[in-house]
């Protein structure tokens, strides 16, 4: 008799998901799936709207990383208003946007590590769920909880001075930005009273990296083997191979580090990337056209970015990058739990970049917007906290959007998350007589490592929880646990 386990809702992820696991008569896993069961349809309802509304409208997909959508849509609109891509903007326009983006990366990574992931690390994957949450962290590890809150606040305040609001601002407009950074605004972040200044943010980010490295030393087995599997990796990189979260060319490598997508122009993404629809999930499955549906899927996000980049262009993060690379002898790192390590190195990089930008006098200049010859189609890509984000629009001669296609980070990680679930199901649930809460949380931990934002991924609405159900071969529900 086959059994089916469903995990619904998946908790401490952004969005709403469900996992089902089918077991055979001997309790071995025969199939596992992460279903995304919400649907939102943003791509449809931007149709007909004027193109300059897109950056403000589409960011409403998400309350966690709206800046990513705001900027990706603005970048696509840069192309449409003839401002070109990337370095086509004025220095102030480009740098203000970068500052906004690094503020965003910083606050989102901090939110994930301190609020969503730290309970698993600090209390253990199989600890009592009553304490294995952010409230438990706040009670027992007060300093860590406070640091998380203050770092997030810092990132959000950076967003506020660049976008106009902490959430859902209007800063990025087609061809540039609508404001610069005043000296007073700048000084708040450079010389603010402890701890609200950028130097403290850098030192706290470094502490967080060290915290993880310590943890890794003590729990090497878990961190190195949990949901580890080979895969391709994809991200944007700067033209010289440096990590660049705001702009660049698309690079993909295989599990051995061989380049399989050679630094191509984002405007041409459709030549290289396609999406498969499966009838059991609203989330599509992207893959590299050349390698097909079976072998062409890839991972995105912090782990992928550290794998694809040749170096990180900020000194402290570069040092950590070297250590990270050395751990796998320079080969791509395929260990899902190392996503946390990579994410913290990026947090440090974001903090360093914020400092560099805050010290840049270009941010006080007044040349904010540039426009050229209007065209009818544009692609905007960037590295959102959770991975590569594609925005693609077509606009008619009346300035109305006629087509929008979004491939969000979590969608790019769809197949990897499914595989991570399968890895954990195989190693922890197969052959077990009883399904414990700890086992189910292990499945969630694997999903959570990708910091999925399930609402964005289907452009869907909802909360975050997950449910696991266990079914037999005749599709009878044997066991169901909500977390």
């Amino acid at each position, binding site marked *: 008799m086959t059994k089916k386990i469903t995990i619904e809702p998946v908790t401490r992820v952004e969005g709403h998901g469900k996992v089902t696991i089918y077991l055979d008569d001997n309790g071995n896993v025969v199939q596992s799936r992460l279903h995304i069961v919400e649907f939102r349809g943003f791509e449809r309802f931007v149709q007909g709207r*004027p193109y*300059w*509304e897109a950056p403000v409208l589409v960011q*409403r997909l998400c309350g966690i990383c709206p800046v990513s959508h705001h900027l990706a849509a603005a970048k696509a609109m840069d192309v449409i208003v003839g401002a070109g891509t990337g370095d086509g903007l004025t220095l102030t326009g480009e740098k203000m946007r970068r500052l906004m983006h690094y503020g965003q990366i910083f606050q989102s990574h901090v939110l994930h590590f301190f609020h969503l992931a730290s309970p698993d690390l600090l209390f253990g994957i199989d600890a009592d769920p009553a304490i294995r949450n952010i409230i438990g962290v706040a009670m027992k590890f007060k300093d860590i909880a406070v640091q998380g809150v203050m770092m997030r606040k810092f990132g959000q305040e950076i967003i506020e001075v660049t976008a*106009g609001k902490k959430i859902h601002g209007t800063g990025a*407009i087609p061809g540039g930005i609508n404001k610069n950074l005043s000296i007073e605004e700048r000084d708040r972040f450079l010389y603010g009273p402890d701890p609200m200044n950028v130097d403290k943010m850098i030192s706290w980010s470094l502490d967080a990296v060290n915290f993880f490295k310590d943890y890794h030393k003590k729990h090497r087995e878990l961190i190195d083997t949990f949901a580890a599997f080979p895969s391709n990796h994809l991200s944007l990189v700067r033209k010289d191979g440096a990590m660049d979260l705001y702009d660049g060319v698309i690079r993909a490598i295989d599990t051995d580090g061989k380049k399989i997508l050679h630094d191509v122009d984002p405007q041409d993404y459709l030549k290289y990337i396609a999406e498969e629809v499966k009838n059991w999930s609203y989330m599509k499955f992207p893959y590299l056209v050349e390698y097909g549906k079976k072998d062409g899927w890839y991972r995105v996000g912090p782990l992928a970015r550290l794998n694809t980049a040749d170096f990180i262009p900020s000194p402290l993060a570069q040092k950590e990058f070297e250590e990270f690379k050395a751990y796998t002898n320079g080969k791509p790192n395929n260990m899902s739990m190392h996503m946390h390590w990579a994410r913290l190195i990026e947090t440090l990089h974001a903090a360093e970049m914020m400092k560099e930008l805050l010290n840049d006098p270009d941010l006080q200049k007044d040349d904010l917007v540039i426009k050229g010859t209007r065209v009818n189609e544009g692609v905007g890509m960037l590295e959102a906290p959770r991975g590569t984000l594609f925005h693609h629009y077509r606009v008619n001669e009346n*300035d109305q959007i006629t087509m929008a296609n979004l491939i969000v980070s979590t969608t790019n990680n769809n197949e990897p998350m499914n595989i991570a679930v399968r890895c954990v199901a195989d190693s922890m649930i197969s052959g077990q007589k009883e399904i414990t809460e700890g086992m189910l949380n292990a499945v969630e931990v694997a999903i959570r490592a990708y910091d999925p934002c399930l609402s964005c991924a289907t452009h869907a609405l909802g909360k975050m929880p997950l449910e696991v159900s266990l079914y037999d071969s005749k599709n009878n529900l044997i066991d169901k646990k909500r977390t």
Partner: protein
Amino acid sequence: MSEKIKFTIDDKECFAEKGQNVLDAATDNGIFIPALCHIRGVKPAGACRLCNVKIAGRLMTACTTPVESGMEIENDIPEIQDLRLAIIEMLFVEGNHFCPACEKSGNCELQALAYRYQMMVPRFPYEFPVKEIDASCPKLIIDHNRCILCKRCIRSFKDENGKNIFAFKKRGHKLQINIDEKLSANLSDEMAQKAMDICPVGAIIHKGKGFDEPIGTRKYDKVPIGSDIESVV
């Protein structure tokens, strides 16, 4: 100098020029009466009904009622304020006013009034009407979702040659603003911006330049609508 007329609003002694309407007179005396259709100097239309006040126990639109000597006007009383809130709520449910993505947000008089009157959930059900966007004019977009049919554009906007480019078309609940395709084709950017500024909401949009005013600097970001009038006297 012409003779001043004496009257009261909520027992406050006020003065007006002979022939002035109640709305303009209130403004000159530092009293805010909300209105979405009125433009000073343009013949009043009494279209939006927000400026309702009570005179001798009767509801009257302040924009169309001339002040008379000794008039006792009730303005800031619960009955009137609730009536105004109800009208604001009605305007919201009758159209599709999605402030979050509207570029007029922060400069929109309807939104500003909703804030001033602390509108929460409208008491009427949303109608979610199916409305169109007319984007065929090279300089302007007419978003019928947001039009409150105040007629400001019809009454006060003329192109460079003094011609009306806005008019009503259709009737009843299908009534909508129409823009003259030929005349509007020649509008300058300056005139297009002027048309956008006349519209109290985001129904007339100057093409290609949205969201260039940062949050914090827009008209109603710092002070509520009407406070400029109230701070004068």
